């Protein structure tokens, strides 16, 4: 096919975009040689890729031809799907790397011949390692196995063995080994600290003092590996029994090296139990004996350090040059520097947190004490005068007979016993475990801070619009590729300011009669208790039934056994969220009507026991989807909530799906028989970027379907001048209502809620 035809076809596919002709020609030229059937296949995927990225689409066109040759028809769209995923996680470069191997790797994996990737097994291994460690240790993809004690890095893929079962076993071994290195104290400093931790890890300092630092480090790690493997054999016998089949088959540097050094020989011995190479030399024999000592039950890392100290002097510089020998595959490098930095960081964080919490605590205690005293001025003066010379004394309030030191539950400051909060006690305990003592200057700076910063902190209310929770990331549905864009939208909850205005009073005044009527109607929906008569079992005797039964007996008729009365309670167990569109288009009458409707519904809901929450949503682009909690589910309908309703106003765009997904995740924490999500909007979902039209509608529809799958009933109220075809498709026929007269909304909304829940 010639280039001109290709160009014409291409422009047809990407209409109305008009990309630069040079780029198009360059991208299409490799395709000229392809057969027209294949070009058809390649072109068929353009609509999925073009809207995502133009440069990706060009890169795709120039590289897809050969790839598509080797793929079956149904594999092609899967390949494009993976390509888009790669682009979204690794950028254009990631996508190019993926395309570079012409789909070989992809095909192998697809046909079940590839290795095992971390993301496939993470969901299984993450809770596993959390369970082992008793805390969260994050698993992170990297190029090799290692740990910095907070996280464990693992290779992003393992393809060492033909079967994925064995590859998985290796993953599991890596995780368990890295956990063991934390748990069994691989990183414990030597008993006699040589250098302070300020500059480097004490182990690093220990190696630095040896004649051959690098060798010492490698030797230590090797002995520790021996020790940890035996530790694992003891702690996780099942794992090690299984691992026995893969350990001898793990690759060794010695397998490919021309000459084997001592470390290679030792590694071979450790994994394959093949010690023959060691027979010749005395040093090797010594190393073998030392290894056995380290493997002995009850050995700790000091044993390995001693072993290093003992063996190192026997090695010449030449013999000890093991630069070519890599650590074992599950061992990975020692990341001492990072561990030290983490420890220091944690220590600093603890210090800051302790000082902050303690100063706040002291202030609170002072405020309480001052409130009860008239002569507060004097006492504060003396307190301020004496700070700096504050004497702190740790007072242990519990008896000293136990073996472990009891927790610090109070402090003596300025000759006053200050009880600590639970949080502070825990912090003090952590600090003491780390440093051995609770440093006095922590307490001094806290008291100092409490003296000075009194006014500043008491007025520290959350600033307007500040993020009130951690941002959450959600996937987004892309209908073109029938798959999710992974971790695509970032949703942040932001606080709305409380606004003092006459809006609420005016609304209450305006709808006075209606509110009264609504309250009456809603009252009738309240939990009802009624007696059910003629039951087989019940709390009391149903006298009418009993009389009948007795009469029946006397008359010789078969008597009924339904002679009891039962009190039946019908409980409304409903939780509802109202999700309110706060996009720019709601400015004016629509926004006003929505706010009025919210006031009305709140006023009516107050007579019911249903739990309900109100959230507003808006935002711009996928990384800034914002939700504004107006009323959280268990919050009271207080003045603050009313003021927040008053503060609802038009903001930015309508990216509705992430907001719906966030509400769905909020619902996951709610226990209720009926969970209702009511969305109030004024039209199509739309955002500043490409989020519009069919894409936005399909994504929203999908978010609603996800909610339904989680047992939530979504219901959408749309305010628009005329009904649109897409609405029924997006919301589902029965799950939406369309209101064309804005002024009817306030009245309709409680009515809708009533119909939905009765």
């Amino acid at each position, binding site marked *: 096919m010639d280039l001109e035809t290709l160009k014409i076809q291409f422009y047809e596919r990407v209409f109305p975009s008009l990309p630069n002709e040079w780029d198009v020609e360059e991208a299409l030229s490799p395709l000229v040689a392809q057969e027209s059937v294949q070009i058809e296949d390649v072109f068929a995927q353009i609509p999925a890729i073009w809207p995502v990225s133009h440069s990706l689409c060009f890169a795709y066109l120039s590289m897809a031809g050969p790839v598509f040759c080797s793929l079956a028809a149904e594999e092609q769209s899967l390949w494009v799907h993976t390509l888009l995923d790669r682009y979204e996680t690794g950028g254009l470069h990631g996508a190019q790397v993926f395309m570079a191997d012409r789909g070989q790797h992809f095909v192998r994996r697809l046909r079940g011949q590839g290795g095992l990737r971390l993301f496939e097994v993470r*969901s*299984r*291994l*993450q*809770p*596993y390692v*959390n*369970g*082992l*460690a*008793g*805390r*969260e240790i994050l698993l992170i993809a990297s190029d090799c196995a290692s740990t910095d004690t907070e996280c464990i890095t693992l290779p992003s893929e393992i393809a060492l063995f033909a079967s994925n079962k064995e590859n998985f076993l290796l993953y*599991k071994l890596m995780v*368990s080994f890295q956990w063991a290195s934390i748990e069994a104290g691989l990183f414990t400093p030597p008993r006699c600290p040589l250098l302070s931790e300020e500059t480097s890890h004490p182990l690093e300092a220990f190696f630095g003092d040896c004649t051959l630092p690098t060798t010492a480090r490698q030797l230590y790690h090797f002995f520790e590996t021996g020790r940890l493997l035996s530790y694992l054999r003891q*702690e*996780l*016998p*099942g*794992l090690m029994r*299984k691992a026995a089949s893969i350990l001898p088959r793990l690759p060794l540097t010695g397998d490919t090296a021309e000459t084997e050094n001592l470390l290679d020989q030792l590694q071979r011995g450790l994994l394959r139990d093949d010690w023959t190479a060691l027979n010749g030399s005395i040093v090797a024999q010594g190393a073998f004996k030392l290894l056995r000592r380290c493997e002995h039950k009850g050995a700790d890392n000091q044993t390995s350090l001693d072993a290093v100290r003992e063996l190192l002097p026997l090695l010449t510089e030449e013999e000890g040059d093991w630069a070519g020998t890599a650590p074992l595959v599950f061992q990975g490098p020692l990341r001492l520097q990072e561990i030290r930095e983490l420890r220091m960081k944690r220590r600093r964080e603890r210090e800051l947190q302790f000082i902050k919490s303690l100063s706040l605590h002291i202030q609170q205690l002072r405020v309480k004490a001052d409130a009860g005293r008239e002569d507060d001025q004097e006492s504060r003066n003396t307190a301020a005068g004496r700070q700096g010379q504050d004497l702190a004394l740790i007072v242990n309030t519990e008896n000293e007979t136990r073996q472990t030191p009891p927790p610090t539950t109070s402090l003596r400051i300025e000759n006053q016993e200050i009880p600590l909060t639970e949080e502070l006690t825990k912090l003090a305990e952590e600090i003491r475990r780390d440093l051995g003592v609770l440093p006095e200057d922590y307490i001094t700076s806290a008291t100092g801070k409490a003296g000075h910063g009194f006014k500043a902190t008491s007025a520290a209310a959350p600033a307007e619009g500040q993020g009130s929770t951690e941002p959450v990331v959600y996937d987004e549905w892309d209908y073109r590729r029938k798959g999710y864009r992974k971790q695509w939208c970032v949703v942040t909850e932001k606080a709305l300011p409380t606004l003092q205005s006459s809006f609420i009073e005016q609304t209450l005044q305006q709808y006075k009669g209606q509110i009264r009527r609504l309250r009456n109607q809603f009252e009738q929906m309240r939990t009802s208790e009624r007696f059910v008569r003629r039951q*087989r*079992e019940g*709390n*009391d*005797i149903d006298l009418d039934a*009993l009389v009948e*039964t*007795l009469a029946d*007996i006397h008359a010789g008729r078969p008597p009924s*056994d339904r*002679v009891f009365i039962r*009190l039946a309670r019908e409980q409304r167990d409903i939780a509802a969220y109202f999700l309110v569109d706060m996009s720019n288009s709601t400015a004016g009458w629509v926004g006003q009507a929505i706010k009025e409707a919210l006031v009305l519904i709140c006023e009516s809901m107050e007579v019911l026991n249903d739990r309900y929450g109100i959230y507003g949503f808006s935002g711009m682009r996928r990384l800034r989807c914002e939700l504004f909690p107006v009323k959280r589910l*268990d919050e009271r309908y207080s003045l603050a909530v009313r003021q927040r309703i008053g503060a609802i106003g038009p903001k930015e765009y309508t990216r509705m799906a992430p907001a719906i997904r966030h509400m769905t995740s909020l619902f996951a924490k709610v*226990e209720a028989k009926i969970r209702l999500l009511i969305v109030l909007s004024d039209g199509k979902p739309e955002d500043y970027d490409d989020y519009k039209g069919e894409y936005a509608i399909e994504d929203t529809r999908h978010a609603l379907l996800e909610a339904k799958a989680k047992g939530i009933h979504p219901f959408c109220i749309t305010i628009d001048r005329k009904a649109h075809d897409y609405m029924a498709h997006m919301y589902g026929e029965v799950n939406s209502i369309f209101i064309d007269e804005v002024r009817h909304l306030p009245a309709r909304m409680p009515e809708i809620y009533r119909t939905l829940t009765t």
Partner: protein
Amino acid sequence: MLRPPLRIDEHRIEHEPYYLPTGDELAIAEAAYYERAPLLLKGPTGCGKTRFMQYLAWRLQRPLVTVSCHDDLSTSDLVGRYLIRSGEAVWTDGPLTMAVRAGAICYLDEIVEARKDTTVVIHPLADDRRELPIEKRGELLTAPPEFMLAISYNPGYQSILKDLKTSTRQRFIALSFDYPAPEKEIEIVCREGGLDLEMARSLVKLAAMTRTLKDSGLPEGASTRLLIQTGKLIGRGIPIQTACRAAVSEALTDDVELLGALDEMVSSLF
């Protein structure tokens, strides 16, 4: 439907139940008994609350009337009701009334499961009045000194719906239960599950692992009771991993991924 009257003698505990004290709970409970104060036991499921009550009842030589509370439990279910028997209305005591009359120990298990209005009936019994009004008969029962009221609940649900009313909880002497320390738990699992020491140790290790998975989606880890059941399965010849799967993993969660992780723990340990 006619029910036979409840008989108190059926509630006597003849043989000493196995119970390994983990602290001073026994001393406190006995002191409460002699001081006629009611008991509140809290703690996760399967950590030995019910067994403790059985043991206490045996030590004090009192019958133990246990009521498992559920959300349809009404006041009449506790106090009693009129039943029709051969054309006549006959009053039948509920378990609570029976326990009060007989000076037994009445143990309301998982009290938060019952509706809050039902639990109010125990208020006059739980303070120094120690009275149980039976409205339908116009009778006011005063509890004899031997009577004791005990309730239990599991604070781990963290649901506002399943919290105890403050007015209720403020009447009780509270004992907090938790899973026993590893050494004690091993002893318990050994003895109750009929396992050797090594196996019991591994099971307890497994339980400890599952109890730290709160943030990974497992609100409650394996209880001591589950470990004992696992031990019994193993004793009946079920292979260890199958027994762990049936009695621990599957009992704890339905989540496929968590099940996988639990399986990995089991296969690592055994």
